């Protein structure tokens, strides 16, 4: 009991003015008050204890949060770094994909340059011989014969020019292929571009695999004229589609179906305000379960080391994001696959 209540209690007990009954009743009240006071004190003590515990816990929580906040900051830094690394890796992968496809072309390029070079070398030698012959005829006074020889020289020189330009075109397209895209749309003859890459891809395949053979068909819409595209990017797309087509016919040939003639057809067509470049093969086709994944980065059905899985995904980006076009596929398993690059004009 508190000293104050004890004093009041003692005063009541010793008071002569109160009756025993009053004293008893008053002391009972004081006892009640004391009991309540003890209860309140107990509760207050508990609240105080709780408050202290809570305070300690809060302090701990604040420290914990601060630690966590620091950790998050660290993680953020790491994530930013990782993202930058990923971006750099992606750029490297795109470049490796370009170089890998350039590698596929190297042998084809060598072949395509040796052929025009054969003409350039030999027609220039022929021209030299013909000039000697022409001089001889002029000395003899045979002007008509000399004129005929001059015509032959002219023809030889035209051939040198044609084949020189052909070699030049091949070297340029190779450089364009390996160079980082300028992202600049330039007037391009899509038919020439498609034909060039078809030949390069064909000879590239042929050089890599002696047993490779396929009929190449072209059906170009001559009314297209020049269209504004990023030629090295669209060239890369066409090359990728043709290389895949050759791969598909080779895979089917391995199964040795009777009377099978591997055929890859490249066609172009102008329709309203669109240009469609179609690459079709009569190869293995694409199974439905694979079809959903073909444009996903790193997806490939080729054995390890033979495909980066980036070809179609990059092609898709070039056509859709780079040119606002569409890349569509039509296929029947075991029978054919046709990819259509649809470009707005």
């Amino acid at each position: 009991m508190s000293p104050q209540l004890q004093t009041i209690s003692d005063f009541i007990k010793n008071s002569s003015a109160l009756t025993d009954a009053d004293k008893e009743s008053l002391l009972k009240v004081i006892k009640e008050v004391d009991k309540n006071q003890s209860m309140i004190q107990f509760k207050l003590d508990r609240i105080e204890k709780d408050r202290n515990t809570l305070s300690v816990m809060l302090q701990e929580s604040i420290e914990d949060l601060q630690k966590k906040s620091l950790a998050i900051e660290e993680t953020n830094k790491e994530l930013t770094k990782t993202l930058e690394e990923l971006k750099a890796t992606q750029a490297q992968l795109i470049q490796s994909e370009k170089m890998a496809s350039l590698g596929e072309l190297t042998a084809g390029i060598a072949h395509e340059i040796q052929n025009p070079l054969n003409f350039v070398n030999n027609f220039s030698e022929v021209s030299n011989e013909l000039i000697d012959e022409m001089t001889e005829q002029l000395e003899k006074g045979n002007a008509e014969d000399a004129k005929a020889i001059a015509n032959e020289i002219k023809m030889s020189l035209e051939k040198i020019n044609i084949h020189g330009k052909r070699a030049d075109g091949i070297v340029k397209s190779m450089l364009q292929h390996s160079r980082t895209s300028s992202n600049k749309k330039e007037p391009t003859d899509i038919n020439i571009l498609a034909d060039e890459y078809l030949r390069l891809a064909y000879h590239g395949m042929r050089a890599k695999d002696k047993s490779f053979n396929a009929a190449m068909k072209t059906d170009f819409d001559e009314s297209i004229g020049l269209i504004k595209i990023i030629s090295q990017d669209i060239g890369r797309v066409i090359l990728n589609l043709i290389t895949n087509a050759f791969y598909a016919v080779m895979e089917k040939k391995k199964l040795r179906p009777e009377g099978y003639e591997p055929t890859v057809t490249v066609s172009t067509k102008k329709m309203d305000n669109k240009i469609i470049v179609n690459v079709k093969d009569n190869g293995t086709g694409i199974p439905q379960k694979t079809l959903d994944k073909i444009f996903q980065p790193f997806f490939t059905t080729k054995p390890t080391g033979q495909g980066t899985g980036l070809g179609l995904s990059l092609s898709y980006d070039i056509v859709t994001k780079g040119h606002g076009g569409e890349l569509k596929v039509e296929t029947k398993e075991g029978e054919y696959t046709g990819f259509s690059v649809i470009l707005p004009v």
Partner: protein
Amino acid sequence: MKILVVDDEKDVQVLFEQRFRKEIRNKEMEFAFAYSGEDALKYLNDLSHEAVLILSDINMPGMSGLELLRHIKEKHKEPPPLVMMITAYGDADNYNTAMKLGADDFLTKPLEFSLLKEKLKAIH
């Protein structure tokens, strides 16, 4: 001497006709041209065209020069015509395959016509 030149490059005909103009004029050599392996086989199957020597490219769309060589050496046995391979791929693989299939010679592009002339004259 009748020579069949097989190459998918159409200008090969003009080139041969120019480089061998004297031999053609003097009727020392006669050339025929086929632009694919299939065309060459058709030509050889026609008895009125009997080539004694075939100069064939290796890389051609459709039937390759090596397949043509195999056909010629298997089917035209009595006696098989001489076959000289001319290719832009002068690698060991092509050379060995051609020789194994019975090629009589192997030349690479760009073609040295002086060398080819010597070889042809030696056969003649």
